[in-house]
């Protein structure tokens, strides 16, 4: 067997060293494309998934959101809930929010909005709101007569400008009149304009939590939601259970539970496309690898016959082709990896823009890359072995002289 391997290596290496370099280049090129095909589309789909899920997590729901039970408008003891939640291992941060309906008026323009009362200092740990202020600043601890409005409301959204009503020319420093759903009127100065390029965000407005408490005359500790971020992405369901176990009796949802049907469906169909593209990529890849190696072996039929005729064992011959095709495929994977990574870098720097504003940056899925490499190497052994084996089974005369 050792001799078989040594001879197999000799045959393979001499064929690589002195074989046709153009053929080698072509084979490696095709193999690199096969590899790309296996990993590229899933990376793009991964990027889309991250984009969608990111929005749900970064703005309305966090990783886990706790909402009042039944018909209750408020969680009554939100501070108590917060205390319990924060004590759960694996929870990174939590905050409470108060969502209310209101209309905003500025120079005869009126827009209906949801106003969220937030605790500004806590939001930095919870959401992206503090980081998407495109003009002005986010709310501070003492902001009581100040408001953050979404760019659609302010009329400065470049994306959604035409579709929705807006307040006209609202800028940082403009005064707006807010009429809350209970009829209370307040005047606020616009402290900042936020833009997430997503309706859910840009149609929203935000004031200090205490402001809502005040306007609605709420007792301490009321909230419409408690938003939780966790340490380990992907453990949402376990964390949800842990939070329940910690004695939280309100309704507990993961971001995925809460995601609108549309997005859930989108994610589902993306998942299906992902699986299909991987499957098709694999089948096509396997077929191509087999064909390439098979043609290569057919071209060397005579050589195989000669090797056999002079006493080289069929096993060495089969091994040599397994080595050979492993070498081709390794080079192909290497070239494909370089191609893939350069494309990844390119798209990281120049994301694909979706719906005009959603930037899709492909995600490198290391597991998938490793899987693809292993799959291709395995296929290469099969692709090298099977045809060589079938040719080496042929009679010597037929292999050498064709009859």
């Amino acid at each position, binding site marked *: 067997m050792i001799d078989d391997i040594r001879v197999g290596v000799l045959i393979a290496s001499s064929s690589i060293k002195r074989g046709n370099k153009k053929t080698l280049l072509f084979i490696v090129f095709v193999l690199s494309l096969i590899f790309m095909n296996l990993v590229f589309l899933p990376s793009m789909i991964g990027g889309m998934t991250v984009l969608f899920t990111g929005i749900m997590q970064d703005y309305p729901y966090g990783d886990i959101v706790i909402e009042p039970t039944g018909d209750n408008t408020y969680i009554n003891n939100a501070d108590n809930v917060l205390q319990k939640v924060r004590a759960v291992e694996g929870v990174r941060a939590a905050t409470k929010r108060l969502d209310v309906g209101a209309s905003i008026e500025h120079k005869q323009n009126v827009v209906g909005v949801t106003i969220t009362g937030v605790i500004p200092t806590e939001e930095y740990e919870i959401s992206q709101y503090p980081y998407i202020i495109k003009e002005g600043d986010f709310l501070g601890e003492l902001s009581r007569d100040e408001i953050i409005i979404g760019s659609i409301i302010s009329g400065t959204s470049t994306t959604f400008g035409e579709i929705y009503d807006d307040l006209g020319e609202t800028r940082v420093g403009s005064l707006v009149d807010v009429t809350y759903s209970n009829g209370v009127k307040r005047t606020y100065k616009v402290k900042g304009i936020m833009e997430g390029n997503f309706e859910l965000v840009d149609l929203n407005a935000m004031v200090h939590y205490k402001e809502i408490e005040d306007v609605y005359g709420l007792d301490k500790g009321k909230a419409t939601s408690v938003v939780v971020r966790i340490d380990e992405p992907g453990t949402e369901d376990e964390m949800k259970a842990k939070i329940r176990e910690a004695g939280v009796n309100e309704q507990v949802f993961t971001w995925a539970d809460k995601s609108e049907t549309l997005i859930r469906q989108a994610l589902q169909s993306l998942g299906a496309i992902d699986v299909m593209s991987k499957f098709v990529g694999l089948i096509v890849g396997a077929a191509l690898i087999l064909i390439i190696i098979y043609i290569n072996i057919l071209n060397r039929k005579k050589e195989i016959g000669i090797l056999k005729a*002079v006493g080289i064992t069929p096993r060495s011959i089969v091994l040599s082709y397994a080595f050979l095709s492993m070498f081709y495929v390794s080079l192909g994977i290497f070239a494909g990896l370089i191609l893939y990574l350069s494309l990844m870098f390119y798209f990281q720097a120049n994301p694909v823009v979706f719906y005009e504003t959603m930037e899709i940056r492909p995600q490198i899925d290391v597991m998938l890359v490793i899987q693809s490499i292993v799959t291709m190497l395995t296929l290469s052994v099969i692709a090298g072995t099977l045809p060589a084996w079938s040719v080496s089974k042929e009679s010597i005369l037929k292999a050498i002289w064709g009859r």
Partner: protein
Amino acid sequence: MIKVKNLKRYYGSGSTTVKALNGVSFEINKGEFVAIMGASGSGKTTILRILALLDDATSGEYTIRGLKVSSLPEAERSYYRLTQVGYVFQDYALINEMTAAENVYILSMMEGKSKKESYKVALEALEKVGLKDKHDRIPDELSGGEKQRVAIARAIAKKPDIMFADEPCANLDTRNSEQVLDVFKDLNDNYGQTIVMVTHEPWHVKYVDRVITFKDGVMVGDEWVEDR
């Protein structure tokens, strides 16, 4: 050493059957240098391939040193080809991507010799055919005659019990042919190498001990060469 009995080899079937060998029996003993002669199409290549275990007879018996090789499984035939039988093809049959030395030493490696040892054996063999200085050339860089001499080196390197050569000089000029035949004779005289060579050339007869003549798939002559 070699014994064939009523050997037949038919190609095709039905009305198109070609009876390339139609009942051939002979014996070749150790140390003989035998020439197989005969007109084109008389079955010389066919018998040689069967003797060298490259082809199977349709019927009949073939034994090497008493062992009935005609019914051996392929793995053992392969071992026989590697260790007991040398074969020189009419058309060189070298591996184009290997150097002259590699073409020769791959067999020693197959036999389990170290790379260094194999290389030494290969160089010795190449020296015998006068190509030591061209050991690192690939076949494309050699003339037809040189290629054939590499093929001969490959066949003799393992010092086989029996060596077969199918018109080994078909592509060589007289001078080169003499060189090759001298190598054969040297092997035969000094190492007792058994050689069976197919040839067309009447003047080759002076190198051999015995001439077997074929005609239309049967043996029509078997003569010992007297003065050699």
